[in-house]
């Protein structure tokens, strides 16, 4: 059973795209001197493009492979200002350790050039369409940030 943790980060107009990405990076790679920070810094431009297009509103930035699967969404407009649904709490463990990877959602028309750019500079960062999800590990179980775990298969049997 995989564990999924969700975070919702305030974006435009509370933060610009770069500030939003910096906040997400601080959550995902808390050690400023880590290799993960350097890898994520190389993806900043593509991430900013994704955030500015609001692709991250309904499609998550997904991190997996280094522990708990993490899904980061962004809040925009009034939601970003009021922060009612914001959850920027530190993660219980570092998801960018070991063999981690990260998928950034992009508008369909941005996927091609974004992936080419990432392939040239990054080894752990990938672009995908907002219409795609990342594997199906999170279908097995969902763990909320409060620690409550739901086995979805058993839930739907009941």
């Amino acid at each position: 059973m995989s564990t999924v943790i969700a975070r919702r980060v305030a974006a435009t107009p509370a933060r610009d795209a770069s500030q939003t990405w910096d906040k997400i990076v601080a959550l995902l790679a808390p050690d400023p001197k880590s290799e993960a920070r350097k890898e994520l810094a190389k993806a900043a431009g593509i991430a900013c493009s994704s955030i500015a297009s609001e692709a991250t509103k309904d499609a998550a930035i997904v991190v997996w492979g280094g522990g708990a699967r993490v899904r980061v969404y962004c809040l925009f407009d009034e939601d970003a200002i009021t922060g009612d649904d914001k959850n920027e709490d530190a993660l219980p463990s570092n998801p960018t350790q070991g063999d981690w990877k990260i998928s950034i959602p992009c508008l369909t028309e941005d996927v091609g050039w974004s992936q080419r750019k990432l392939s040239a500079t990054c080894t752990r960062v990938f672009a995908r369409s907002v219409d795609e999800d990342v594997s199906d590990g999170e279908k097995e179980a969902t763990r909320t940030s409060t620690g409550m775990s739901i086995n979805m298969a058993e839930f739907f049997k009941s």
Partner: protein
Amino acid sequence: MSTSTFSISYAYTVTYVTTKMLLALKEIIREIGLDPSKFTEDWGLYERGISTWLTSRHLERVSLEIYKPRTGELVTRWDIDVIYGTVGDGSLWVDTAAIRYAIVKAGAVPSSCDYDLKLKNSDGWTAVAGWSAASFRSTDGFKRYAVGATIGGNGLAAQTAYWSR
């Protein structure tokens, strides 16, 4: 057109307009047949310059020059002109449909073209790291086509136009 209706500060408007300007320019680059990769490399630098000079009200225009790399000759230019002191309904808005329609009308450019982003400020602007003085390529022989207001917020709006022969 997407619209959000809530009361909003000038600082929020600056962040919103900056983001939408860059988003519009990225879409223009992509839709006229060029690769936006180079543009995204300097996304943070562009944000710092545009937001700083929108906040100080020195920014007059954001221009995307598309040119022939071999000669430096201008092929087309897209302008986003800033209008301060606009009176709106307190909402933030962007008219992406108008921008996309204008892109279709303007047409594609040869894929061998390159591009530069340049800002025009009024006198008295303060320096922002990473930005330096530059001159605009000549628009002699070009005609300017207005698209109209495409981005707006509290006390700030942006009008788009493009140049073509």
